């Protein structure tokens, strides 16, 4: 595999920012689309005086401030926490989900670009993620995948004492690794098949590794997979773009686990609810 992506962080290269990196001027080519059914197109904008310390979204704020001043419609993009945890942000930057570093769009900083660069910005593209406006898409299909079985049924107040079921540290740690998926959708956006496999696999893995998750394990995987097909996501052919684009580094192993669980569940007679 040819990893063209830089590591998650770049350390120690900006303590003294070279003069040419201060106040960058950039050409932005941004997908503008007025609404879900409108036709969209790439529109070019110029922004000046971009500091390398700005986050990518702060750079877009600067652009939007300019647009509002000029009476134009600012670029719609989703964001909320701006610290890489809510999973709300996410755009294609120069053809890469969340841009050239393996992090969220909000945690990408402008020091990853050079003065004079042209940057292409597009929304996630997938039938299951219809565009709402410009760069904002509707990712509720993910919630419906969770609704199909991505939980442990435990009504409030019925839980046993927490220490009654010990969990080996190894399993707890692996479950945690899978559970860190923030539902951003970069995996779908990057996958040539527009498959949601990594997202679903992360949840199946998280719950499947814990003793609490066992009773519903077979039904969970069967139903979640059926739901992702119903939502119109593509099928996974193990290409691996998803994992390499995932800001939380959800591993390909989770997909293997899902497949393993699914085969086992089907053999055991589990069938999706219709």
């Amino acid at each position, binding site marked *: 595999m040819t990893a063209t992506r830089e590591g*998650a*962080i*770049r*350390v*120690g290269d900006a*303590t003294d920012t070279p003069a040419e990196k201060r106040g960058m001027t950039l050409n932005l080519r941004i997908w503008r689309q007025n*609404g879900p059914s409108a036709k969209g197109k790439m529109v070019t904008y110029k922004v000046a005086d971009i500091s390398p*310390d700005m986050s990518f*979204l*702060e750079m877009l*704020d*600067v652009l*939007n*401030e300019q647009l*509002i*001043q000029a009476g*134009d*419609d*600012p670029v*719609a993009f*989703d*964001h*909320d*926490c*701006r610290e890489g*945890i*809510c*999973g*709300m942000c996410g755009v294609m930057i120069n053809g890469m989900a969340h841009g050239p570093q393996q992090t969220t769009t909000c*945690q990408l900083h402008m020091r990853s670009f050079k003065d004079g660069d042209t940057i292409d910005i597009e929304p996630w593209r997938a039938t299951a993620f219809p565009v*709402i*406006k410009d760069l904002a898409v509707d*990712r*509720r299909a993910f*919630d419906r995948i*969770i*609704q199909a079985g*991505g*939980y*442990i049924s*435990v*009504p*409030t*107040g*019925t*839980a046993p004492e*927490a*220490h009654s*079921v*010990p*969990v*080996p*540290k190894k399993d707890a*740690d692996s479950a*945690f690794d899978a559970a*860190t998926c*923030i*539902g951003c959708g970069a995996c779908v956006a990057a996958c040539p098949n527009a498959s949601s496999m990594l997202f679903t696999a992360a949840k199946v893995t*998280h719950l499947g590794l814990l003793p*609490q998750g066992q009773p519903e394990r077979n039904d969970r995987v069967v139903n979640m997979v059926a739901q992702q097909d119903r939502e119109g996501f593509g099928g996974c052919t193990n290409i691996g773009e998803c994992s390499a684009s995932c800001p939380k580094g959800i591993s390909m192993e989770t997909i293997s686990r899902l497949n393993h669980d699914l085969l086992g569940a089907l053999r055991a007679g589990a069938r999706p609810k219709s």
Partner: protein
Amino acid sequence: MPLDLFTVGDPIADTKAPMDVPIGERWSTRRFRGRLVNPANRRKMTIIVVGTGLAGGSAAATLGEAGYKVKSFWYQDSPRRAHSVAAQGGINAAKNYRNDGDSVHRLFYDTVKGGDFRARENNVHRLAEVSVNIIDQAVAQGVPFAREYGGLLDNRSFGGTQVSRTFYARGQTGQQLLYGAYQALERQIAAGNVEQHARTEMLDLIVVDGRARGIVARDLVTGEISTHYADAVVLASGGYGNVFYLSTNAKGSNTTAIWRAHKRGAYFANPCYTQIHPTCIPVKGDYQSKLTLMSESLRNDGRVWVPKERGDTRDARQIPEDERDYYLERIYPAFGNLVPRDIASRQAKNVCDEGRGVGPGGLGVYLDFAEAIQRMGRPAVEAKYGNLFDMYAQITGENPYETPMRIYPAVHYTMGGLWVDYDLQSTIPGMFVIGEANFSDHGANRLGASALMQGLADGYFVLPSTITEYLADGPFEKVDDSHPAAAEAIAGVRDQVQRLLSINGTRSPASFHRELGKLMWDLCGMERSEESLRKALDRIPEIRQEFWTNLKVTGTEGSFNQTLEHAGRVADFIELAELMCVDALHRNESCGGHFRAESQTPEGEALRDDENFAYVAAWEWTPEGAPPVLHREALEYEYVHLAQRSYK
């Protein structure tokens, strides 16, 4: 007392906690005495829950399970994105798994003391009792808490407590707890018990015959304004720290839901209590849109210092040991770098005010790991703090293994919020407020790892038990849009949207927000004085005036319009800011997160005035122009004795 700024109304009291039994029995007694709703009737009743954070998400799921018809609202695309997701450190619970002397009583005691004696004993005790159930619930849901090799749950100590009672999931405890609640909520949505309204913002509360009966909301995608009716309304819309523009809150965090409910009659309690977190990444430039918290745990091994000389611009590594001032270790030899948040924050501000701050603009202090790296070795430091160091490097482009990190305090949490009684009911019957949106459990200062505990306690356990007392009188008569109160609310919302769009001035909502935030930070921030607050109170009406005459909102009403969303939120922040300043001005004492320059000990520590201010300030809104009305709820301490905090 500056009577021109407010008037004083009748005192207010919580009448719901059963005071005739000892504190340890009050919660069970309340539950026993409260009326219940039988399952057949629950199906006939609708409950609106605004917010899907730890508080709202857990409440909606639990009420749905119980058989009520729940309608859930949130402004993001998915419930899983509520800002609870960002909490890093952990959640407290009095499990005493460490056998280190913890107990419900000790958690209760620590929280009352930590809140600088401005919280209600009853509420805090209940919180401590319920805390143990939260952990059971979360574990059963599959929350992957950190574990030890034996397979049992791990604990750490957090926020200056002497016991290890904090449960955590690496640096992402809030995320994992939220996903637990979110999954429970999605399960109820799938079961048809909860109706979901994603990307829908509550813009007003509908009060009919004195009862909260519904909300007016705007679909943020289509712009459609709709009404929703219910037998009770629950607000769980989070904190309002974004009044400062720069804070550790999410960009969308707002006061709109609670502020508009306040304008409909809900009292707003202690609005000036704001928590400033000491270990945040400093501001870089004026484009900065948000501040990022670095876990407090860094203070366990990092040493905080500034140069002794003011204006010392040498590289940190060039400054010799004897020219450094490890000021926390110097001033507080016993607690050193681990003093509570408010103290650490204020001292950082002090040294920066003296001109000894470091980094751009002189607003920062060093958090130095050189000594820790020498002592523990870099691999050990990496194992313990690696992800935080990475985050710092990602944001600043500096390598914290080589140069000390720079940190500065930032607004983090708001202890104030809508006033609620022991049942979590506001002054509007039928409207309940939970999570950070209410004022209830933390007094003037919140301890680390206690907000997650409170949100989940409220949502999973407290509200679902107490709301039945109110609903036992239901279902209430049907209301619809033709009711005058509803029609008036809808018209009001439409009106405001129209007004915002039609001003067509020259300034964006963001520019007003930034201006307001800076003013609040400078004049009503970490340290407040009569002078600064009066200055703020002069200035805020001017900002408001300019906002309503010179705002520019592009786009239309009937579409996805983020500028319009922002404008509405800023309008509310401006009004809230004024009330915060009035509250801060009237509270002529220092307590917890509220530090009045006039009220300090000779050593510069916060000085409470229990004689005059041992009360909750619950503010009533009055129509435009008239000053707000103060209702005092006296605080009494039966079990924890009033004492001055000392960390020397």
